[in-house]
C-alpha cells in the first residue's frame, strides 16, 4: 500500500474499513450485483420485455423453452418468465430488506436497553430472550405464516419478529463491553440521560457487528421467503415470486425444466452476494483480521 499522509481523517475507523472493503474484489463484485439487482427490481416495469400477466394465444405460447424472444422460456399460460422473474425480484428483495429492518430495530432496542440497564432488568430480559429463542425459528415462521394467511405486510412482520434475537444478543454484548469505557463515563458525568447515551454514543459504536449480521440476515430472510412461497404459505400466485415460480416449475418438471431452474439461480446469486458482502464487511471492520484477502 502506498504511504498515506498521516492525518486524522484517514484514520477514521469507517474510512479505514471502507478502504479495506474496497480492496476486497470479491466483496465489491457482490455489492455491485446487489446494486444491480436492486435497480432491476426498482425499474422492473420499465425493464421487463413483456407484461408478466399478459396471456395471448395460450395454446401456442405455453411451455416454450428458452429462446431469444423468451430467454427464460414461458410458463403454462405462455407468460414470459424473464419478466416474471424481474417482478419476483421486487418481492424477494423488499421482503428481505424490510424484514431485516424490523428485526434489527427490535433487536437493537432490546439489546441496548438490556445491556445498558444491567442488574435485574438485564437478567429478566435475558431470561425472556432465552424463552423466545426456545421457539424453533423456522417452525414458528411456518406456523404463523400458514395459519394467519399472511399478506405481505404481515409476512414481513412475522419474519422480522422471529429473527431479532441474534441481533439483541450481539448488541447487548457490545454495549456491555462499551458500557464502562471512558467516553461513556464522561457522558454520564455531564449528566446526559440514559436514553441519549444509548442512542447517541453506545449504539453507533455497537453498529459494526450489527451491520455484518444484518447483511447476512437479508440473505437468510430472502431464502426463508422463497421457501415459504414455495410451500404455498408466503406470497401466493399469481403474484410472481421466485419461490412460487419454482413450485410451479416442480409441477411441470417433466415438460418444462426451465420454469424451476432460473428463479433458483437468481435466488442463489442474490443470497450469495449478500453473504459475500457480509463477509467482506466482517473482514473490513474486524480489527483482528490479519489478512485482507477474502480467500
Amino acid at each position, binding site marked *: 500500500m502506498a504511504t498515506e499522509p498521516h492525518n486524522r481523517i484517514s484514520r477514521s475507523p469507517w474510512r479505514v474499513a471502507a478502504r479495506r472493503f474496497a480492496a476486497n474484489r470479491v466483496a465489491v463484485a457482490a455489492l455491485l450485483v446487489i446494486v444491480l439487482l436492486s435497480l432491476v427490481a426498482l425499474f422492473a416495469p420499465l425493464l421487463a420485455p413483456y407484461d408478466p400477466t399478459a396471456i395471448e394465444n*395460450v395454446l401456442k405460447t405455453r411451455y416454450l423453452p428458452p429462446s431469444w424472444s423468451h430467454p427464460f422460456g414461458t410458463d403454462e*399460460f405462455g407468460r414470459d418468465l424473464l419478466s416474471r422473474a424481474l417482478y419476483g425480484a421486487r418481492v424477494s428483495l423488499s421482503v428481505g430488506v424490510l424484514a431485516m429492518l424490523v428485526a434489527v430495530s427490535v433487536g437493537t432496542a432490546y439489546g441496548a436497553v438490556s445491556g445498558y440497564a444491567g442488574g435485574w432488568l438485564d437478567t429478566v430480559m435475558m431470561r425472556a430472550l432465552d424463552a423466545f429463542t426456545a421457539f424453533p425459528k423456522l417452525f414458528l415462521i411456518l406456523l404463523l405464516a400458514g395459519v394467519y394467511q399472511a399478506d405481505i405486510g404481515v409476512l414481513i412482520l412475522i419474519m422480522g419478529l422471529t429473527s431479532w434475537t441474534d441481533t439483541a444478543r450481539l448488541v447487548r454484548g457490545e454495549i456491555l463491553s462499551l458500557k464502562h469505557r471512558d467516553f461513556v463515563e464522561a457522558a454520564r458525568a455531564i449528566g446526559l440521560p440514559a436514553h441519549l447515551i444509548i442512542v447517541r454514543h453506545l449504539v453507533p459504536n455497537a453498529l459494526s457487528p450489527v451491520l455484518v449480521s444484518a447483511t447476512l440476515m437479508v440473505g437468510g430472510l430472502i431464502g426463508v421467503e422463497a421457501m415459504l412461497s414455495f410451500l404455498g404459505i408466503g406470497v401466493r400466485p399469481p403474484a410472481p415470486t421466485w419461490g412460487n415460480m419454482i413450485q410451479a416449475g416442480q409441477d411441470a418438471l*417433466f415438460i418444462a425444466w426451465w420454469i424451476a431452474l432460473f428463479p433458483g439461480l437468481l435466488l442463489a446469486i442474490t443470497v450469495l452476494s449478500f453473504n459475500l458482502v457480509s463477509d467482506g464487511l466482517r473482514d473490513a471492520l474486524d480489527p483482528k483480521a490479519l489478512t485482507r484477502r477474502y480467500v
Partner: protein
Amino acid sequence: MAAQQISRREWVHQQARALGVAALAGAAGCRSKRAPGSDNTVMVLYPADEWVLGPGWDVSAQLMVFLPLAVTNRRGELEGRLAERWEHSADFLKWTIRLRDDIRWHDGAPVTAHDIKFILDLLAHPDVLYYSPDAYQAKLVDDLTYTVTCRQYACTGIPLDDWRTYYPKHLLSKLDPKGFYRWDFWKHPVGNGPFRHVRTVDRTMIELEANPDYFRGRPKIQKVILKFAGTRAVPELESGKVDAAVWVNRADVLKLAGDPRFRVYQRVFSGRDTVLFWNHRNPLFAETSVRRALTLAIDRRELYQLLNYPAGTPICDASPSFRQLTRRDFPDPIPYDPVSANRLLDAAGWDRRNQQGIRERNGKAFDFNLVCDFGSSGGHGEAAVYIQAALKRVGVRMNIRPLDEADVNRRVKDGDYEAAIGTVNIYGASSEASVDGTHLHQPFDAAGYVNPKLIGLFGRLWRAVDPDEVDRVLRDIAALFQQDVPVTFLFPPVAATVASTRIRGGENCYGEGDITGCMESLWLEGAG
C-alpha cells in the same frame, strides 16, 4: 490428497449407482413376472393406500369388492344391486327396501338385511361419526327387508346412495367401533362384489381376483392389482409397471396424451360446476347486460384447452343432469364474442377508457377483486389467471386475491366478495339439506340474485324423483340462467384416467367413478 477427496464424493455416487442397479436387477428378477399371452391382469396405479377398500376413502375402488344397494345406469335410472325393490313414503322420509336373495359374501354367507341394519347403525355410531347420529333409524322387517326412517332431510341420498357399500355383520359385529377407520378388515376384506380379495402387501399393493360366483356373471378380467404411489403417473406408466393410472394431474395428462400406447379417459361429472360468482349488490355487476358482456368476453373453449380438458367437453350455462350430459341434451352456450362484449359494455355506459385502457363510467374505473382458491387442483387458479387476461382485453381490470378453499366457501356463503370463483352444487346432495331445497339457491341469494322463479324451480328440483321431471326442471333453470346470467359457468369437473390401449371397454364406462368402478365390464385385448 486433493484428487482423493474429490473422488470420495464421486465414489459415494458410484456406490449409489451400483446399488440402484442392484435394486433394479433384484426387483426385476423377483417381481411377479407376467406370463406372455395368458396374462389377464390389470395393474392400476392408485394414489391411495392399503386402506382404500375401507370407508376412510370414498372412491370407486371399493365397488370392485363391495356392492351398493343400487347404481345409476346410463339412462339415469337406478338399477338394483343388493336391493331388489324399494319404495318410499310420500314425503320421502321413510324407505322400505327389499334385498335380493341370491347374493352371498365371498365366504359363502348370505347377504341379509341384518348386515345392512348393522352397518347403518355403525356408521351413525358416536365413535364413528360417518353419518350424524340422529339422522335416521333403521328397522328390520324380515331377513331380507328393512326400513329406514329419516329425520327431515337429514339423510338425503343415504337410503339408496350408489356409493354406499355394506359390509358383513357376522365378521364385524364383535369389533370395537372406536378403531373403525383402521380395522384390519379393510386390508383383508370379505365382500360380495365382482372381485375377491387375494392379498394385501402393506404400502405396496392389493391383489384382487375375479369372483366366479358374482351374480351378474364372472368378470372377464381375471386379476386386478392396485398399486400405491403418492404422485407421478408418468414414469410408472411409461415403464410399463402399471397399465392404468387414475386421477392423473393435468400436466401429466398433457405429456401422456401424445403417447400412442395410452388412452386418456376423461370423465365429466355433473352437478358440481365451477362458476364465477358476481355480486349483484355491487354497482359494477348489477346490470344483466354487463354480466352477459363479461361472459361473452371469456373464451371457454380455450379455457378448456388450457386445462387439458378433452375436446368434446360441453360448455353449459347451467348444470345438466348426467343423463342430459350423455345425450348432449342442453341448450347452446353463450358464445365467445368479444365484439358483442365491447358493444354491450359501451351501451351500459362504460364507454370511456382511462390511461391504462381500463373502462370508466362517471370517473370510476371498472376494477374489482376476485377471490379464489389458488392451491386447488380443481383449476380455479388457472381459470382466474386466464379470465384476468381475457377481461383485460375488453378493458376490465380484475385483481386476483388468492385465499384458502375454506375461506372462499365462507365468503361465497356470506356474499362477502366482489367476484369469486367457487362451485355450485345443483344436482347433488348438499350438506345444508333443507325441506324445500332452499340450500340450492342460497349461494345465489348471497350473491344478491333473489328470483322467486328460480326459488320455485329449485324447490321443484329438490322434490323431483322422476328423472324426466328432473330434466325438465333443469332445462327451465338453464333457460333462466341464460336469460339473466346471474353467475358465469366456467367448467365442470373432469377427472382423468390414463390407461394402456390394451384395456378395452373403457369407453362404455358410465357413472361418476374412475376405471375401477366399471372393472367388471372391461376386458384385456388378446387375453385368454
